[in-house]
């Protein structure tokens, strides 16, 4: 081994690791899409009296139990024809929806009361009050907070390893146990995570500047 990283060796394992990274990124993107849509839906439905409280309780439950346990539990309960990837992505999405729902909620509550009253004074239908008045203002305010969950979620995808999704960590584990060169392998894994999350973080900071100022 020469120096800190053996470039020849890392070059050899890179195709495998990049394949794993691809799965990790896919899981993050699809899971995030689920978290964004489902979270929004939950935030709106939570305002319905009784049903909303039940939903709130469920979300509280999801937020206070570990993601990895939820993954293993659902994987064990789910019918065999669902792939680990599908189950992993859905559980990840629902888990994070419990967080994004709170973010959306704070955004919705931050919309001035006068906006609701003006919508009512104009007799706007409920769909327009939400769709054209309240949500555009609420979401704008919470874009930075939602962005932070994208990165948090990306960093949580290795947990899918627990149910057998062959994402970056799983590939690294395989490569490591094959060649017994864990340090090189996991150093590259760490760098690959950085390569994705640093640009994402920069992008989110930019969004933050753009939207919070308004």
């Amino acid at each position, binding site marked *: 081994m020469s120096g800190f990283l053996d470039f020849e060796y890392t070059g050899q394992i890179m195709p495998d690791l990049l394949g794993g990274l691809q799965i990790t990124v896919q899981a993050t993107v699809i899971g995030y899409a689920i978290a964004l849509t489902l979270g929004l839906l939950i935030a709106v439905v939570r305002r319905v009296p009784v049903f909303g409280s039940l939903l709130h309780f469920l979300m509280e439950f999801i937020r206070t139990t570990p993601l990895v346990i939820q993954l293993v539990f659902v994987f064990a309960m789910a019918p065999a024809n669902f792939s680990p990837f599908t189950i992993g992505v859905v559980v990840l999405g629902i888990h994070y929806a419990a967080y994004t729902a709170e973010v959306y909620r704070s955004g919705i509550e931050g919309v001035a009361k006068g906006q609701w009253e003006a919508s009512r004074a*104009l007799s*706007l239908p409920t769909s327009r009050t939400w769709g054209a008045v309240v949500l*555009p203002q609420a979401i704008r305010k919470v874009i930075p907070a939602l962005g932070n969950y994208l990165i948090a979620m990306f960093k949580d995808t290795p947990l899918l390893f627990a149910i057998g999704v062959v994402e970056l960590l799983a590939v690294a584990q395989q490569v490591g146990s094959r060649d017994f060169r864990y340090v090189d392998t996991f150093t590259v894994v760490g760098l690959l995570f950085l390569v994705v999350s640093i640009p994402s973080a920069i992008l989110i900071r930019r969004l933050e500047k753009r939207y919070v100022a308004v």
Partner: protein
Amino acid sequence: MSPSDTPENTTAPGVEGNAADAPLIVFDKVVKRFGDLTVLDHLDFNVEAGERVTLIGPSGSGKTTILRLLMTLEKVTEGHINIGGEPFSHMPRGSGLVPASESYLRQRRKSIGMVFQQFNLFPNMTVRKNIMEAPVHVLGLSKDEASERAAELLDLVGLGDKIDAHPTQLSGGQQQRVAIARALAMRPEILLLDEVTSALDPELVAGVLDVLREVAETTDITMLCVTHEMGFARDVSHRVLMFDKGQIAEEGHPDQIFGDPREDRTKSFLKSVLENGH
């Protein structure tokens, strides 16, 4: 020919006639409580179609609550409000009346517009979109028609050049004039003005009041106006109602109320308003 032969009598008896003769707005023993606080106390009053009524009185006397009840932003605790000869706070069910449902209110309040103290323009839309939103999505106007209506109304309020601006780019006075245009775009029968100049810097008040004078002179919209601008109230209103503790302390022609108030409560209120520089 007997009266029953005339075609006019084929409609249900009484309904048409009542709607035409009755006052436009009727408050019938209206009580509004917030918790233990009684804001309106068995209030009775009527407003005729086309009448412009100014509500004055100390803060907490219930003036704004009257507007908010009419805009269905609040519900009556007791009593009834009728508009156009038909129940408004309640709706007919069976042989009696029950508190109005949301869909009933939605239908009934279309003919009522309101301008708020804090303007409440939609900051995420341009001025044009603010005005077009309700005509398109409530009245079903085409976008072209609504856009044309927006342009006409903006000319009326003297802001024709601001049609594509965002509300945040406008002064308070300009925002309030847009809010007036937005309310008028629904062609309301009744316009509610809730302290529309109270949040404005003094130099911007005149511009907004001029627009409202113009609206009062050129339309027959029924107006209910809560204001501390006594000069404006005197100029445009047919009648002034002085409120105190949820009841009408005195009512009359503006010249009488402002020139020769009879009640001590009116006198002391007017004195305090004058002392505060209004």
